[in-house]
């Protein structure tokens, strides 16, 4: 075991002592802060759920949190068209493209690789829950290094179980009630909440604010 690792371990232990039972989220933002990305290219998400709607449901809702965090977000539908025209027809093909190639075509500073692991409704005896879970990795397209990773989940049931759930709960409940009366995808509004939790800046372990935000450089 090298001394550097050992001292990091000791530091971690100390922090965890200070923090009591709460395991601290230690995120290393050094590479992120050094890279200072301005523009983000969001690749169509990989979908590991059984529902084929997952990729484009989430992709259509990533721009809001990222742009409000202060980044320029490459227009997602247009980017998807450009991939198709270049023979990259699936999220897997696209995720396998080299960072250098992505940089050449789009001129973006960083790319966001998202994977949807859960998307849909689990039918249970007592109550059914619609859950969307996704993880993301932000990669510097100049160097190919990872700048940040995160994951988030949202469920239609989180507002109901704990008797309240605050505004987010109310939002989910309301959104889902609306959807039940229509023929639309019940998971889509849940994916919107997952996207906000995953990609908003200004919360622990979240993305840093980008250059277009007044809060840029404060985190």
């Amino acid at each position: 075991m090298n001394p550097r690792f050992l001292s990091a371990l000791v530091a971690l232990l100390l922090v965890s002592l200070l923090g009591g039972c709460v395991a601290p989220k230690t995120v290393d933002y050094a590479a992120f802060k050094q890279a200072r990305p301005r523009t983000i290219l969001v690749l169509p998400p990989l979908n590991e759920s059984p529902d084929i709607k997952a990729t484009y449901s989430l992709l259509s809702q990533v721009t809001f949190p990222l742009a409000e965090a202060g980044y320029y977000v490459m227009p997602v539908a247009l980017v998807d068209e450009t991939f198709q025209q270049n023979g990259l027809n699936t999220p897997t093909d696209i995720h396998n493209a080299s960072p250098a190639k992505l940089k050449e075509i789009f001129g973006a500073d960083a790319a966001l690789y998202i994977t949807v692991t859960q998307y849909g409704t689990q039918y249970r005896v007592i109550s059914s829950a619609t859950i969307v879970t996704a993880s993301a990795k932000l990669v510097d397209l100049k160097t190919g290094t990872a700048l940040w990773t995160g994951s988030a989940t949202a469920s239609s049931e989180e507002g109901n179980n704990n008797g309240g759930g605050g505004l987010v709960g109310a939002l989910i409940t309301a959104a889902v009630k609306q959807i039940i009366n229509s023929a639309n995808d019940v998971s889509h509004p849940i994916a919107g909440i997952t996207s906000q939790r995953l990609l908003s800046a200004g919360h622990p372990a979240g993305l840093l604010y980008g250059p277009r935000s007044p809060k840029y450089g404060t985190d």
Partner: protein
Amino acid sequence: MGKKFGLLRYIATVVAGGALLAGCAPQAKTLYQWEGYQPQVYQYFNGEAKEAQVEALEADLQKIKATNRAAPPGYHAHLGMLYGSLGKDDQMVQQFQTEKALFPESTAYMDFLLSNAHKGIKQ
């Protein structure tokens, strides 16, 4: 038609919910006026009629102009793509130029698209 109203109602709910959420944090104004950009992108991916999308985005653009706030990143580029797919190349070029002017960070990609358009390689 019922499907369309369902979606509209859903959008209204999400927007209202977002307004509620934004309401609890004082002065938490968004950087951009979003209107229907994300729902329109979703419509695009669902293969809805492009003429209707152009109409909705243009109508929202009037609302954005009326409040003097900024359209979100990608809004004009998305609209330009729709014009391009309808064969309205002049309007496509104009929208790509607007995106570039509002967001200079988009220059490389917009120039790439414009050069393709001039070569006639668009769909």
